[in-house]
């Protein structure tokens, strides 16, 4: 496996009306790399609209960046040969945010698993395929008989999201691109989900790009964290360092936004809306390019 994913100066602009120059820049000159070995979890943290999900779409090859390139094994993912493309597809797999919309309501949930089996030629016979599916479902702590043959609307959000994990488990990619996978799950199911991700890291050596706006999940996962704001990565480092000694004002603001689980420490300070703007205005460093973080 050519196991490295690299973003080199990725920029993504979208046409938009009512903006001065006719487009908005969702991702602005982002560079970072992810290595498959040793397996790790890298979190990408930022507020809504900061460009996190766009980066996920770029990495997954669903959206061609306006400038810059996404490299897999040193090659641009939009210029891969057939064999390389097949390998890239197999090796970089997503878990999406919305456990409801990810399933086509027309089909039973088994279909996403069978489709993955067929497209990536994981099993030659139906019996073998079923065996793989059941094994993967058990790996994400789902009982096959409870989910197979059902329609998506008959399962809970947590079950559906774990079926997506079962799909990942079957494909064994080197990279999981998880775009806000737990934002629509409740607290207990969320921990469950994160544990499975950690499990995948240690047992199957999968590297996860974990995209979220929620610092508590980042803290739980550990590993590295990148902070993104306004389409630029402003900080990268081990979770403990970034959490305790944030260097960028935006990171500080983000950390201040976590409520303390202590009844005596009520959330008294208010963040004025314009403070978010001021952070950038007051700090010219935010406009300069962040150094390309190296792992």
């Amino acid at each position, binding site marked *: 496996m050519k196991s490295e994913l690299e973003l080199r100066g990725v920029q993504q602009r979208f046409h938009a009306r009512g903006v001065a120059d006719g487009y908005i820049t969702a991702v602005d000159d982002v560079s970072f790399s992810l290595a498959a070995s040793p397996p790790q979890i890298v979190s990408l943290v930022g507020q809504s609209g900061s460009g996190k999900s766009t980066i996920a779409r770029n990495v997954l090859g669903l959206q061609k960046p306006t400038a810059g390139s996404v490299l897999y094994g040193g090659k641009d993912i939009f210029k891969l040969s057939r064999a390389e493309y097949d390998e890239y597809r197999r090796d970089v797999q997503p878990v*999406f945010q919305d456990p409801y919309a990810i399933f*086509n*309501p027309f089909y039973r949930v088994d279909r996403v698993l069978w489709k993955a089996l067929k497209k990536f030629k994981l099993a030659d016979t139906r019996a073998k395929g079923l065996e793989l599916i059941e094994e993967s479902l058990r790996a994400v702590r789902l009982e096959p008989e409870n989910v197979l043959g*059902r*329609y998506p609307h008959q399962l809970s959000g947590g079950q559906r999201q774990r079926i997506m994990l079962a799909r990942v488990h079957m494909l064994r990619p080197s990279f999981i691109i998880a775009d806000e996978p737990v934002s629509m799950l409740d607290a207990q199911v969320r921990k469950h989900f994160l544990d499975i991700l950690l499990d995948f890291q240690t047992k199957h050596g999968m590297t996860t790009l974990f995209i979220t706006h929620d610092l508590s999940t980042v803290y739980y996962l550990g590993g590295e964290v990148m902070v993104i704001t306004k389409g630029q990565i402003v900080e990268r480092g081990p979770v403990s360092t970034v959490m305790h000694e944030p260097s960028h004002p935006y990171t500080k603001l983000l950390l201040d936004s976590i409520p303390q689980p202590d009844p005596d420490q009520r959330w008294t300070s208010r963040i004025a809306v314009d403070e978010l703007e001021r952070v950038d205005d007051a700090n010219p460093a935010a406009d300069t390019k962040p150094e390309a973080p190296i792992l």
Partner: protein
Amino acid sequence: MRILTAVLRTIRNSRRLAAGLIILGVMVLLALFSPVIVNAIGGGKDPIEVAAYEKWLVPGPGHLLGTDQFGRDVFAMVMKALSVSLQIGAIAGIISTVAGVIVAFVAGYKGGWIDGILSTFTGILLVIPTFPLLIALSAYAKNVSLFQVGVMISIFSWPFAAKTIRSQVLSLRTRPYVDLARVSKARDLEIIVTELLPNLLPFIGVGFASSALGAIFGLVGLEVIGLGPGGVVDLGQIIYNAITTGALTLGAWPMFVVPIVLLTLLFAALNMVNIGLEEVYNPRLRGVAGE
């Protein structure tokens, strides 16, 4: 087989759909067997021939719906005209649905300048006043075949289907399950056929039904004002004859009433099918137990 049971299940779940389909089915059967029925009425000779019987016979045992101004059996005429009307609906419905679906999927899924051109074109066709143009067209169309009339009418009815389906494609193609299919190495055509098309079946069904209805009623409209294309005898033609000869005053009421009742039933049936389809295909309205 699985599709068949699924279809049966859907029909069982919706009374509206079942009622609509039954009425429609009966009419289609009548239309299919119309040559047999017409033969039976004639008993060896053609009951629709001019002067086959005496003219203006009132409804009775020999002639269930009486005869018209040329002595033709009205019941036989109605059967034949029903079959013609349904055929027009089917031809125009199929042509405009196929054209609409193709245009809608190409425009909606590909987007960009292709969408721009196709949407502008459908938009232009949509704002053209159809009926006057149809009148003008049919003035030139003497002795046209059924199929030609169907094509003529569907030229103006496919944009409606295209427009509604395109907007659905636009909203569906950004769904996460389409992205998931793409990262599972599905090709564009495969995504369109297996991910998008099934979810659009109710819209396509509605598109078909409304273009079929539009075609049938468009032709009836032309015939009733006496401007229909020559050579095609549909239900509208019978209504036109009833109006121009004053059939109602002569006691030949079935000539006027029966075609109208049939058209109303057809309209109701197709609409019930439309509404029923929508009910059934909205997955939120499906039973929680699924089976």
